[in-house]
């Protein structure tokens, strides 16, 4: 788990650093059909909620040519006042958006984004010290969460980037999700709990470049 969090941290910082280190697009050094090095993220995002932080910032990649499958890596923060201790979360999301609907020249809608996320929380108070519990004393992890989510995205198309001819995009999105523990809770208690009880909401903005 320590390795995984380290990887996620490094990956997100590396991608941000790579973005920062890239000189402003001049249109000379980049070819329209391959504008990005593989490690250079295709978008940045900022969100709140969804169990991934009061604030979570991240970078992500388009995983296919159709650009409807994305991987996002986020680092989130929850202050002690709300989380009981200061929490840092490293998360990964894979999102699939089957439809892209143009609304006007400058607006397009992704009516459905369906995805899965995984998150690791660092900084909890009772964090299972070695030897504290016998094996499988608790079957669940207090730090690792995963779950599904469904959402939509509204994209504003800005002026095209000279190098690629692709429009700059700024999107606003929301995601309704849940996590493994909430789903397990609901599964055995369809009378005592409702679907609404186990939902979380994330709101965010995303910039493609």
């Amino acid at each position: 788990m320590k390795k995984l969090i380290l990887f996620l941290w490094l990956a997100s910082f590396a991608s941000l650093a790579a973005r920062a280190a890239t000189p402003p697009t001049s249109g000379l050094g980049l070819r329209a059909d391959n504008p990005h090095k593989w490690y250079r993220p295709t978008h940045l995002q900022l969100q709140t909620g969804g169990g991934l932080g009061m604030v979570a910032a991240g970078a992500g990649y388009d995983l296919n040519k159709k650009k409807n499958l994305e991987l996002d890596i986020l680092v989130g923060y929850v202050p002690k006042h709300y989380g009981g201790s200061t929490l840092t979360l490293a998360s990964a999301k894979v999102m699939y958006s089957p439809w892209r609907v143009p609304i006007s020249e400058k607006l397009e809608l992704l009516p459905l984004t369906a995805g899965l996320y995984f998150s690791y929380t660092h900084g909890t108070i009772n964090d299972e010290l070695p030897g504290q519990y016998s094996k499988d004393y608790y079957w669940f992890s207090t730090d690792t969460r995963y779950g599904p989510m469904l959402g939509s995205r509204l994209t504003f198309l800005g002026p095209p980037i000279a190098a690629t001819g692709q429009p700059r995009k700024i999107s606003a999105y929301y995601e309704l999700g849940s996590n493994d523990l909430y789903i397990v809770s609901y599964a055995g208690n369809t009378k005592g709990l409702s679907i609404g009880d186990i939902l979380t909401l994330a709101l965010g903005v995303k910039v493609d470049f």
Partner: protein
Amino acid sequence: MSLKNTLRVGLRLGWCAALLATAGCNIIEFSPNDHRVPDEFTDLNQKNLTRLLAKPLPAGDTLRFVFTGDSQRFYDQAEDLVKAINEREKNVQFVLVAGDISDFSLAREMKWVDQQLRKLNVPYLTVVGNHDLNGNGRPTFEHIYGALDYSFVYGDTKFILIDTNSREYNFNGQIPDMGWLNAQLANTEGARRQIVMMHVPPDNEDFDPALVSPFANSLARTPNLVCAMNGHNHAYRIGPLYNDGVTYVNSDAFSEKHYMVVTVWGDKQFRVKRVAF
């Protein structure tokens, strides 16, 4: 999929999200450890206690309460339990829940349990369990239910509720807090008798081995102790654990579909009736 249908999907999802976001249910959750809840779900033990103490036991009435425990992730059963107690137990003054209110120590779970138990006709009081202390359960439980160690006097009886979940503190020698317990036992605050409630009983491997004897001895030395009550084992048990005259009563878990009605009278007499629901 036509444009109209796609738009409809998007609109519906968006509408759902907007409804939920404005419903005041803290759906924009920062983390599962995020313990923000509406004010009505904070400080629940104190709120229930205020309700209880507002109606003191009339002189000559018998002290009677329901004893249960381990509500963890048994929300369907919680609903049945509430219905059963409300229908059948017209002569109890309150309900005691012996810890493990939640299963994963998360705020939402504690709120879900309260959403059921607040439908009881009488107030309910809880003590913290080991399942309420994982991760950031400690501040979460404190925020939603209240102090981990507390006491109150009702019906000429002092109730002492203490955190005995030593393993969650990695056996640091301070849980249960013996100094606090001894001070509480020494001062009856005018009550005729005392009852100690905890989650993990001292004969369990999750109780700090270094504190088993001091704890048991403190209880045994208390002349007006009615009994000690605990949860954790998910199994009804009543009797002495040591040859020291102290009776330990282990509650049923919500999943056992049983609860107990405890009647207390005299200097330290009590009776337990087990009821199926």
